[in-house]
């Protein structure tokens, strides 16, 4: 057929399935009526359905009624960028007042992280990034592929308490190279659901200053974690108020339910406006050969929601509704686990925050849960609380109890 026998690509091997998205594929293939998808982090209603927020539906109507498909600037919709920065840093933030931020629209959280990482690989002299252990698996791929080759883990999750290993974390941070890029989950840590307390954030900030780290916040759950937009931005604002130069990747996938529209923003906070402007010009050079300019539709929806007072109020209400339902599921699952007599302590289920919970289940226990109970979840024991409802909490609790007894 072609000149090379077997073609030019016969040497290309089959790639492994994505650890998270691969679960959804496996779930889809299952025909068992009891199957439960606790894999990918997309919100589900009590009825187990995807949700498009009313505020978003209305904004969408407005956007479609005034259609415009012309290329956006490389950096995206300017209003979107300004509003996103304000959302994260606060109305009265000195960062914004002094124009210290270079904010560009990018492809949700992933795209923002990738643009940021590429920028750092080119312009930041320290090629070390510190990632919490565990973290969202894509973090481990994005940074090295972008050219930040030295990836180091810092202790984060403490299996014994299923909480934060604060001492271990600070110890590892102090040992890291000066000037390292410090990746922090702004709130609702993925996959553990374990967040530092306010005091612990202050401690982390002190070490970051001491070690001249460059903080890089991954903010995928602002408003979605506690139900309160300002509260979920506490860590970001604490660092910004200290005058830290830092990066921020924002996603609207979860908090506005815009998953597939790929809406996000990358911010680089620089020392002053002149530097921020030069940084922006360099970000454009990263973006142009990657995707030229970002997709308009989702960002146009965000602008409408954030700019229109009625839609904004409605959004806040719906956001709280989602967060409340998830917290309700946490409480219920905790009760059901007690009821099912699942061995061990389960208070972490209600102490953790956000969409995910690190159950503490081992790999064999997870595999058992999938095989016998048709519960689909990632092998690290992470479950998406958003995938639960009243009925499935009991089912899951019973499954967990069984799995722990079967695979001690």
């Amino acid at each position: 057929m072609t000149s090379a026998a077997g073609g030019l690509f016969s040497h290309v091997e089959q790639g492994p399935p994505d650890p998270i998205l691969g679960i959804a594929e496996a779930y889809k293939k299952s025909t068992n009526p009891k199957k439960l998808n606790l894999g990918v982090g997309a919100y589900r209603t009590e009825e187990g359905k995807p949700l498009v927020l009313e505020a978003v539906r209305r904004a969408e109507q407005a956007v479609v009624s005034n259609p415009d498909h012309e290329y956006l600037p490389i950096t995206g919709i300017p209003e979107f960028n300004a509003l996103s920065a304000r959302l994260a840093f606060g109305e009265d933030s000195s960062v914004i007042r002094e124009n210290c931020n270079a904010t560009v629209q990018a492809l949700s959280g992933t795209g923002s992280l990738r643009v940021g990482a590429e920028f750092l690989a080119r312009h930041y002299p320290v090629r070390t990034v510190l990632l919490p252990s565990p973290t969202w698996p894509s973090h481990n791929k994005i940074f090295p592929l972008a050219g930040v080759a030295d990836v180091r883990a810092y202790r984060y999750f403490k299996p014994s308490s299923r909480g934060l290993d604060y001492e271990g974390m600070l110890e590892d941070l102090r040992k890291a190279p000066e000037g390292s890029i410090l990746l922090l989950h702004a709130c609702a840590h993925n996959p553990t659901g374990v967040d530092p307390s306010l005091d612990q954030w202050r401690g982390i900030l002190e070490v970051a200053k001491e070690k001249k780290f460059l903080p890089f916040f991954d903010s995928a759950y602002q408003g979605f974690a506690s139900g309160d937009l300002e509260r979920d931005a506490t860590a970001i604002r604490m660092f910004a108020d200290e005058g830290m130069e830092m990066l921020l990747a924002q996603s609207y996938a979860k908090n506005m339910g815009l998953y597939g529209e790929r809406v996000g923003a990358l911010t680089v906070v620089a020392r002053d406006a002149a530097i921020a402007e030069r940084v922006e010009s360099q970000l454009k050079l990263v973006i142009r050969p990657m995707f030229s300019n970002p997709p308009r539709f989702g960002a146009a929806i965000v602008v409408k929601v954030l700019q229109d007072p009625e839609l904004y109020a409605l959004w806040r209400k719906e956001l709280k509704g989602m967060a409340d339902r998830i917290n309700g599921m946490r409480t219920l699952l905790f009760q059901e686990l007690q009821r099912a007599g699942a061995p061990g302590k389960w208070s972490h289920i209600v102490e953790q925050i956000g969409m995910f919970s690190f159950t503490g289940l081992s790999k064999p226990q997870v595999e058992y849960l999938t095989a016998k109970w048709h519960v689909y979840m990632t092998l690290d024991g992470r479950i998406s609380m958003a995938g639960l409802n009243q009925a499935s909490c009991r089912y899951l609790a019973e499954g967990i109890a069984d799995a722990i007894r079967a695979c001690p």
Partner: protein
Amino acid sequence: MEYAEPPDPILGVTEAYKRDTSPDKLNLGVGAYRTEELQPYMLEVVKKAERIMIDSEDNKEYLPIEGLADFNKATAELLLGKDNAAIREGRVTTLQSLSGTGSLRVGAAFIGKFLPGRTVYLSNPTWGNHKNIFADAGVEWKEYRYFDKATIGLDFEGMTADLEAAPDGSIAVLHGCAHNPTGVDPTREQWGAIADLCERKGHLPFFDVAYQGFASGSLDDDAWAPRFFANRGIEIMVAQSYSKNLGLYAERVGAINFVLADAAAAKRVLSQIKRIARALYSNPPVHGARIASTVISRPELFAEWNTEMDEMAGRIKSVRQLLYDELTKLEPSRDWSFVTRQIGMFSFTGLSPKQARTWLPGRCSLPCCNVENMTQKHHVYMTKDGRISLAGLSAAKTPALAAAIVDSFKV
């Protein structure tokens, strides 16, 4: 960082145009289609498709990494033909990506990882961003001769000589139709010779298809070259964009396709390009893909789309003809036939590219810089390589453009 980088050579043109206050200004920079009134054109089928989508209240769930299945099927069939053997045999891999740029980037990253050490050959000239895309993906690029300044046409001998001299198994980036920036395409006979060469050398053709349907008005005619190669059994890569032909510019709709020797390879390649996409943006935007899929799959919308595409291509053809007529009227001693020989949105006028290193309007007064003359004296904005976008030209402004061109050739 001591200094900001100069503005993007293409997108920066529009920025400069916007700052110009002259009533005579003309933007022949970026390649976005304009009506005779020089307004953006939103296709009727796109408006209808969006309405259908809004009314059906689709959710906004993540697409799979490889994109919307209906879109992928439709785009592969559109490219290769519905009854294409390679599709039937499962030898085609398609991954929805971020328009042409994103699709090229995924393809480039794949080349960098799985065909390491190979060189990519780009036409001289080519779309500026090609070089950056391959460079950022860590892939070495070189150029093959393409544009013949003397004939304002294709340097076929130079092209084939350079591709012949390239090491076996190199990657050749070929524009499927309506070459950007020259508007000069090989003839079918020349395509045949290029295919022979690629087969003989084991080169991997990487087609950039950004104007299918937009160049001639016919989707099938404009896909002739990649189809020809695929039907010859040559493995190819193809990046597609729906920015121009569906006017979906800002929604970033496109796809990277591989036509491979066997179905097993197609599956393996898919698994690998998914990993590449995952680390760039996770999964592609849903909105534009749904629009494209809706239009392509509904016969009445598809037919209407063909009509609209014919109109857009038709306007460009007629404005080319008009420009030719005006130029010939003003300067009959010069051969202006390249204007109507070239095809698509762009025309390489033969005006000299700017020589100076930095692009700062007003700085250069050298007589050789006649692109500068176009902009400074005539307020005609174009890219510094001498490219004009016919899509941005109205019949009304054609006489003025003709005068500007004739004047600038004298400079």
